[in-house]
């Protein structure tokens, strides 16, 4: 027998993932901004001894999708044949979100309505009578405060007791002429409504299934359109809203009053022109520079590397291996220059991990307070010049953590053009946290180089953006975003989220690190490395870099952070001049994304596009390094 499915659906940023986590005991990322969940998450739940599959979907505003992840969410609801659909909404915005409940009900889906975030609604004086709402809607209704676990037992109970009731497909009655069309149409109420709203996907699907009937229907719609001055989708949305408001009136919902709270004042400050940029500066300075740069890349790396690895792990391991394995070549696999332990594990755990961990922690705080949508609102004007909307700030900032994750998040952008530009910029000019941390550590005593590096990267970022928005065809993007209230992060969520991302990162990174170690070892012993080094050496020398950076760039192809860590090593060994440091980190920052990001690019943007982007990135990174070196030489500048 098939397992019963529970689908969690609703508007963005209403707490669907919190409820998913509570039902399944697993962890889907929870944040305070619309669009945290971009993939479908599946988990299992046991309620009253019965096994269920629980599906968490990305947020959507209505059945007619605007963005990619809304499309994904809708298709899940249509294709999975759920036992129940748990519609989660933000109680303080019930009037605006109830129309979606009506859509679910009129689609004949088995709905349970959860009025979530009741604490904020109550603070606004909103009172909701679930009994009356249940009568009006004909579906189970309950209140909850997901983050505090309130109402979840009740939800489980309602799921366990759920019985399919009579269908309320006619909960909203539309204009007589539209109703007449729906009545006549052979496609059923749901599909007919979507046809009226000119949903391209449904139109295509129905044309394929039943061409003659679909053609007639489309012709009828053309006729109908002429009878109204407004688009049909507008009329439908309006009537649904009227129906929702009427239900709320009958159910005696108190709409609450306004309060100017302290959080509201802070919120406005983050979005005002001066206050906003000042707060942005504080976030960058304390979050990135002090916390990730100094604490993560400084204190933690120092401790793990010098105390843990150099003193307590590497000597005994080397000693043990040298005694246990008599052959030099076998010893080299584990220790010495390219050994698994000395290179792979040390880089992964002592250098990269502390940096990534501190970044993810800071990022979690930024996410959970609700700062990101505010930043998006501040920066939209600037991003428009690069063909992006303010919304793209979310993948960009996330890219400062991990470009692979960020490439996946470009899904939340609404046009193909925007997604392409964002993918390019992520691959080119957004260094990931591991890279950034290492670079910060390298440049901590060299403020001039740090400043030049910042300028160069920003120039490349802006130029690449502006150029691609000029070259790529398509409409300029439109910016809209719901701005959630500023909230205090829940400490436990910060830790769980950081931990989950670390776990993801380790699973992703450690195998690559180890494989790279082995590959380097093999290449070293087969003289392949020497050959590769000779090949790469030449272009590097034209950039004024010493020959032995070749190894680092070869490793950097596998993971940028790996390469950066190699540079860090060389700098500490005093093998690089300041000019060389600048050129090397410029190229390394702009250079090819790591293998994981490349794979994600292929997955999200298709092979051809991904390879083209990679080509552009390679050329631009070396060209930028060349130009920087050229300018330094011409003006005989020694940094």
């Amino acid at each position: 027998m098939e397992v019963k499915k529970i689908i969690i659906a609703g508007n963005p940023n209403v707490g669907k993932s919190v409820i998913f986590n509570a039902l399944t005991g697993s962890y889907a990322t929870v944040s305070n901004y619309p669009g945290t969940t971009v993939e479908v998450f599946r988990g299992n739940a046991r309620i009253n001894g019965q096994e269920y599959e629980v599906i968490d979907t990305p947020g959507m505003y209505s059945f007619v999708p605007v963005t990619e992840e809304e499309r994904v969410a809708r298709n899940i609801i249509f294709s999975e044949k759920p036992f129940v659909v748990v519609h989660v909404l933000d109680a303080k915005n019930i009037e605006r979100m109830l129309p979606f409940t009506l859509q679910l009900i009129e689609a004949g889906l088995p709905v349970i309505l959860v009025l979530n975030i009741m604490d904020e609604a109550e603070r606004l004086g909103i009172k909701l009578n679930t009994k009356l709402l249940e009568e009006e809607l004909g579906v189970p209704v309950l209140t909850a405060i997901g983050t505090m676990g309130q109402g979840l037992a009740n939800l489980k109970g309602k799921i366990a007791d759920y019985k399919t009731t009579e269908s309320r497909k006619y909960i909203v009655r539309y204009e007589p002429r539209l109703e007449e069309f729906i009545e006549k149409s052979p496609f059923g109420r749901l599909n007919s409504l979507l046809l009226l709203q000119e949903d391209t996907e449904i139109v295509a699907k129905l044309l394929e299934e039943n061409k003659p009937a679909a053609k007639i229907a489309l012709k009828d719609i053309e006729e109908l359109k002429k009878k109204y001055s407004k688009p049909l989708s507008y009329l439908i949305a309006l009537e649904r809203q009227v129906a929702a408001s009427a239900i709320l009136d009958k159910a005696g919902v108190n709409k609450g009053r306004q309060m100017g709270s302290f959080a509201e004042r802070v919120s406005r400050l983050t979005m005002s022109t001066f206050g906003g940029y000042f707060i942005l500066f504080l976030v960058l300075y304390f979050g990135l520079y002090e916390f990730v740069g100094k604490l993560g890349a400084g204190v933690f790396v120092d401790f793990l590397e010098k105390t843990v690895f150099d003193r307590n792990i590497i000597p005994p391991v080397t000693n043990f291996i040298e005694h246990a394995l008599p052959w030099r070549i076998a010893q080299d696999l584990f220790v010495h220059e390219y050994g698994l332990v000395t290179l792979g594990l040390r880089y992964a755990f002592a250098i990269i991990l502390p940096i990534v961990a501190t970044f993810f922690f800071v990022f979690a705080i930024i996410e959970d307070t609700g700062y990101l949508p505010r930043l998006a609102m501040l920066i939209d004007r600037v991003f428009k010049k690069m063909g992006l909307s303010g919304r793209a700030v979310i993948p960009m900032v996330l890219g400062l953590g991990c470009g692979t994750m960020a490439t996946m998040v470009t899904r939340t952008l609404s046009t193909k053009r925007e997604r392409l530009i964002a993918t390019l910029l992520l691959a080119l000019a957004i260094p990931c946290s591991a890279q950034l941390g290492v670079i910060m550590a390298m440049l901590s005593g060299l403020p001039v180089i740090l400043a030049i590096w910042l300028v160069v990267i920003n120039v490349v970022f802006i130029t690449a953006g502006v150029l691609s928005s000029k070259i790529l065809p398509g409409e300029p993007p439109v910016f809209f975003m719901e701005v959630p209230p500023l909230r205090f992060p829940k400490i436990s969520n910060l830790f769980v989220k950081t931990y989950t991302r670390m776990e993801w990162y380790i699973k992703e990174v450690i195998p690559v690190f180890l494989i790279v170690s082995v590959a380097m070892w093999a290449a070293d012993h087969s003289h392949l490395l020497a050959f590769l080094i000779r090949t790469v050496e030449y272009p590097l020398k034209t950039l004024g870099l010493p020959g032995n950076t070749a190894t680092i760039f070869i490793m950097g192809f596998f993971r940028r952070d790996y390469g950066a860590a190699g540079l860090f090593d060389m700098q500490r060994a005093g093998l690089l001049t300041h000019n060389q440091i600048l050129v090397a980190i410029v190229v390394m920052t702009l250079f090819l994304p790591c293998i994981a990001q490349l794979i994600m690019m292929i997955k999200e943007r298709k092979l051809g596009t991904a390879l083209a982007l990679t080509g552009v990135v390679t050329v631009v990174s070396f060209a930028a390094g060349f130009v920087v070196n050229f300018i330094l030489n011409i003006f005989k500048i020694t940094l």
Partner: protein
Amino acid sequence: MISQKTEEVLEKLYIEIVEQMKKGLTHTALKIKEEGPEHTELLKKKLTLLKDGLFKLTKEGEVEARDVVRRHRLAERLLTDVFDMKGVCVHDSACEFEHILHRGIDEQICRLLGHPTTCPHGTKIPEGKCCKEKGIKDVRVIAPLTLVKPGEKGKISYIQAEDKNKLQTIMAMGILPGMDISLLQNFPSYLFKVGNSQFAVDENIAKDVYVRLIK
């Protein structure tokens, strides 16, 4: 002064020749008599040319005709948005209105309505001089969000988006006519509140959301 009947004829000529790209219109199409009073006025005032039985607009005629069309469509907006009239009634009343709204008054009404760019049926309202120098200082009853001052409140009157996806985007957020709205900020992006949620949008969306202001 051009007579009301002739203005009606001009309106028809503008719609069919300038907007629908027809070559010209015959007496029958215009429902006027050969050598009748309108016929005479059109030619005497050099509003049209008559060639091979087809009326065509002259430069001056087009200016006058455009003005009539503009007044008609502004009147329609006024009747639907401010007086809440619906349906056929709007069209007929607007036909009468257009003759009363003489120059100056139409600009006042245009300001009052926030310089709308389309009539309630979705066709373009020809731009007037006032639309070029539109500003927040005007006396406004209805205004697009771009002409609302931060701190002002109102009810959403209508959403005018030619682009289907954009309209879908706005509607999906639950921003629909009849909802209470207040503008919080207009720089660097527009920030407004509907119900208990705040939204940030760019100028592109803000210019399509028309608000009936509440003082």
